[in-house]
């Protein structure tokens, strides 16, 4: 029952491989096997969205996937957003608009915002709020997060490079 399985995925553009038990959650695979601790684990039952990653280009809860079941997939995590010394425009707007307090939920919100703005460059507030239902924040009351995403959309439309 403790058989291990070879898992090979592309994470933030790099091929990564490891041998893990079948029960290894993708979130734990990223954090413990690959050392990518930007992905946070909150509820571990799919409700909070802190562990959101982009799985083959779409948001997914990494706590609701087994690493072995996504073998061969393309994954983007929060570590992919910033350059060495320059934040992604969405991160920059979260900073400027005070869209985080404790920051635990922030990686999930950022990837939800990435998915939204890549598919819908000019969202209205209702569309932003609908997308952000993916994620729970217990600090901010959401208003500043909505503002940050709306302002990031403006920045990205004006050609700021992600």
């Amino acid at each position, binding site marked *: 029952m403790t058989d291990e399985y070879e898992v090979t995925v592309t994470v933030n553009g790099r091929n990564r491989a490891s041998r893990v038990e*079948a*029960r290894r959650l993708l979130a*734990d695979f990223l954090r413990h096997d690959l050392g990518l601790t930007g992905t946070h684990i909150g509820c*571990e*039952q799919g409700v909070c969205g802190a562990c959101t990653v982009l799985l083959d280009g*779409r948001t997914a809860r990494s706590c609701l996937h087994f690493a072995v*079941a996504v073998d061969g997939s393309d994954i983007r995590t929060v570590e992919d957003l910033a350059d060495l010394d320059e934040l992604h425009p969405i991160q920059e707007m979260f900073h400027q608009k005070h869209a985080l307090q404790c920051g635990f939920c922030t990686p999930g919100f950022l990837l939800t915002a990435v998915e939204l703005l890549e598919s819908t460059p000019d969202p209205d507030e209702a569309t932003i709020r*609908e997308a952000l239902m993916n994620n729970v924040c217990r600090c901010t009351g959401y208003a500043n997060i909505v503002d940050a995403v709306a302002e990031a959309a403006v920045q990205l439309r004006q050609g700021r490079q992600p």
Partner: protein
Amino acid sequence: MKPAPFSFVAPESLDEVVEALARHGDDARILAGGQSLVPLMNLRLARPEVLVSINRCRELDYIAVSDDRLVVGALVRQIDAETDPLVAAECPLLAQALPYVGLPATRNRGTVCGSLAHCDPLAELPAVALALEAELVLTSAAGERRVPAHDFLVAEMTTSIDEGEVLSAVAFKRQDPSEQSALAEVSNGGHVFPVGGVALRWASEEGVCVMARIAAFGVGSVAQRLTDAEAALVGSDLGPAAIAAAVAAARSAVDPTGDIAADADYRRHLVGVLVERGLLEGAAP
């Protein structure tokens, strides 16, 4: 928490899936999107010894029309059905319901068939399957059988899928272009876990209702057809008196229980409100 240990296979064809199920019996569970199963495994409320992933079975990723049916394969993700032009044209009720299912991130991975196989009493799709008179295609080493939705949906988290069977597709009845349909539900903030809801479709000819299908969820242990409410509409002009009769019939037909989200009386009241709301909103141009 973390799941209990299990072993994992990911066959590349339906034949191999069925072989794996035959080999492992009721120790095995199917893994499609996993958006209902994995939370239960993380909480150790489910402890399958073997997971049989269908995620490599490309043959199960299809949406097709066959005679009077729209057939959705077991690997079709909810988000893909939600945006599929064939679904919008042939089964608008399904397209109307899908945005209410879970959250965008869970719809990205969760499948239409997976939600039906899970059979949560608060899930929208079992009620949609009833209203669209769906047939569930169950495949095993012995072959294939097609089960009507009302026989498939047995009780809370319980379907008529037998040991060794996989729900390989669902065949919804295609809606006539003259039909109207609606999905109405109420939830406490967000729409992850609704309190209750109804799925409706109906048709009129020269001002007289000639067909009605109504199914409710969240007001009993499993989604149910509201046949008395349907009968109150058929032959009527769908005016206020007919709607009031359907509302009363809907309330009489359900046997809800109370929980942290709403008590039983509220849910009984709610099902009537939602029947009326669905009929009025679905009729709006």
